């Protein structure tokens, strides 16, 4: 089976819960798209991160993902390709 390597960024409360700012993460390929590129999913990524960083659980309900700087609807299952950048975005407080 192939591997999907991703870059994961942690902000604010997510960084404090995970204790890390950014890291490379590798997920198992769940299939390949029509151009043969392997993909994984945000669902698998969430499972991995929650397992790896238990403290994330407390705040995960309020964390939204952004894939390549586009928000992903909470709970939506989105495909992830090698090299994608996924950010964990806690509640925002700008302005």
């Amino acid at each position, binding site marked *: 089976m192939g591997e999907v390597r991703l870059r994961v*960024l942690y*902000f*604010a*409360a997510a960084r404090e819960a995970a204790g890390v700012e950014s890291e490379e993460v590798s997920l198992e390929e769940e299939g390949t798209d029509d151009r043969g590129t392997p993909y994984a999913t945000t669902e698998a990524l969430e499972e991995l991160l929650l397992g790896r960083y238990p403290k994330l659980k407390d705040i995960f309900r*309020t964390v939204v993902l*952004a894939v390549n*700087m586009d*928000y992903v609807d909470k709970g939506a299952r989105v495909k992830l390709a090698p090299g994608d950048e996924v*950010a964990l*975005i*806690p*509640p*925002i*407080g*700008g*302005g």
Partner: protein
Amino acid sequence: MSSQVSGDSTESVHVEVVAEGRLSLDRAVDWVECPRSGAIATFSGVVRDNSDGRQVDHLDYEAYVPMAVKVMRSIGERIVKERGVSKIFMAHRVGRLQVKEPAVVIAVSAPHRAEAIGASRLAIDELKLQVPIFKKEVFVDGSHWKSNRP
């Protein structure tokens, strides 16, 4: 732009995330000024000395900078396209801010006041809803991340 500023600028939209120094309202107004626009509205979000009754010592802002710039720019472009606005300038500070320092400065120019003022309101509302910037309120006795959503 200096190393302290990440941003993006088109003919009618200028956005920036600034790591250091005081945001300048004058600079924002100068940028949006144009001869055919008789109305200039601005909004500044300034650090207050209290939040929900607790005394604030300072604020720490953090941003997913490239995405913040991207989202601010798309907000600006939509406002120029849909709201009869001539130019819009949006700047947000990150890093440590003291009381009375501006965290965000928005300026909008338009031919008439209704469009300019309406657009400044829309811009700050959209920014607070969409832009990945995070605010940590540091009190004299503790701190917490403060969300825009109640």
